[in-house]
């Protein structure tokens, strides 16, 4: 039994505490500020970091570089944490990175069945579906069914490898480079790399598919 599992845990059953999360969180922030435990300006800075600095464009740069630079790809295979840090992406929830590479006959899919482990340093904050029971329960059992809900159908003979992030390793999927992109530079290639393609619930876009996407969706 947990050392900490004392009676207080059972006092928290009053669901009305959490019926209005806006009010609950505001009350908590007010209390902790009054007690000198937190600095509201630090919260602003954290939010700003994940709204403007740390997001999936980071990971897209890593993938694009791996597509064009064989030496970088090799480094990413051997020591993903260092290779990714060389592009300036490191820190919280990216301390121990691993890159996994899709191939014509093998597709990789990342999940955290136990909580919401996700490579923040390269993908930013996880989307709601990644943290929700539907994805966490089914990704390990019915990945093709899950992929279909993202509009992805793989050839029948493609092997699927699901990585359940049960420890502190954080996985970045390197999707396959789309056909017909030989003449694109790294920046143009990065625009083809979607967040979902780096989780494994999507594929990198073709230049034609990118052109059809509304600006806001990129």
């Amino acid at each position, binding site marked *: 039994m947990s050392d900490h599992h004392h009676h207080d845990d059972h006092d928290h059953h009053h669901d009305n505490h959490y019926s209005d999360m806006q009010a*609950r969180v505001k009350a908590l922030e007010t209390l902790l500020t009054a007690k000198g435990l937190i600095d509201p300006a630090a919260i602003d800075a954290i939010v700003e970091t994940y709204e403007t600095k740390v997001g999936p464009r980071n990971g897209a740069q890593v993938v694009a570089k791996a597509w064009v630079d064989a030496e970088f790809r090799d480094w990413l295979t051997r020591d993903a944490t260092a290779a990714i840090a060389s592009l300036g992406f490191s820190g919280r*929830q990216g301390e121990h990175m691993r890159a996994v590479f899709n191939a014509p006959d093998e597709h990789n899919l990342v999940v955290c069945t136990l909580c919401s482990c996700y490579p923040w340093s390269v993908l930013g904050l996880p989307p709601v579906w990644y943290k929700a029971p539907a994805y966490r329960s089914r990704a390990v059992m019915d990945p093709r069914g899950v992929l279909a809900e993202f509009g992805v159908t793989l050839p029948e003979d493609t092997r699927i490898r699901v990585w359940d992030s049960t420890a502190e390793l954080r996985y970045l999927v390197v999707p396959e480079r789309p056909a017909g992109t030989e003449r694109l530079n790294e920046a143009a290639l990065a625009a083809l790399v979607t967040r979902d393609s780096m989780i494994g619930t999507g594929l990198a876009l073709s230049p034609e598919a990118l052109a059809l996407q509304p600006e806001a969706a990129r």
Partner: protein
Amino acid sequence: MNGPHDLGGQMGFGPVAPEPNEPYFHGDWEKRALGLTLSCGAMGHWNLDESRHARESIPPADYLSASYYEIWIRALDALLERHGFATHAELFDGAAPTPGTRPKRVLTAENVAGVLARGGPCDRPVDADPRFAPGARVRTRNFHPAGHTRLPRYARGKIGTVETVQGSFVFPDDNAHGKGENPQWVYTVVFDAAEIWGESAAPGLTISIDAWESYLEPV
């Protein structure tokens, strides 16, 4: 613990619902919830493993009906109370603030960039050599601890193959309960889907977990 968080292979949650152009936050309170959780963690009185255990200790019906940021806030309330930073009356009944535990550190705005950049590496050296090498056949233990563990239920008592020795890391089953970091080797262990899901296994599917050494026995 066999808690509501251990979701691999459960059924009945319906389709995954990806949201087109999903915003980073659904409402301002989620922003504050993120910042509060990280700020309170930065006080340095509990570790990520204890936080995870607080989340998975939420009663199952509440856990499964809560959004993830609500799960974080419910767990944060429990951690603040457990560590003496706030009383139940302060948290929920609007009682006047009492002194309570003083934090080791308070995260200020100017320190945020540095704290996020440092993160919290949890690799630690161990004296012993790894017990298993790549290619080794192993069986995961079939245990049901009441405390924290990172061996999911669907992967207990299953035979798989060690693919990679990933390094040595803090052992969460101990660290979540204040029993020390007690680092162990961690291995990526791969299972054929049939070993886990039997006759309903999808063809061509393999699943891997990252397992601490004490989760594994030689076959």
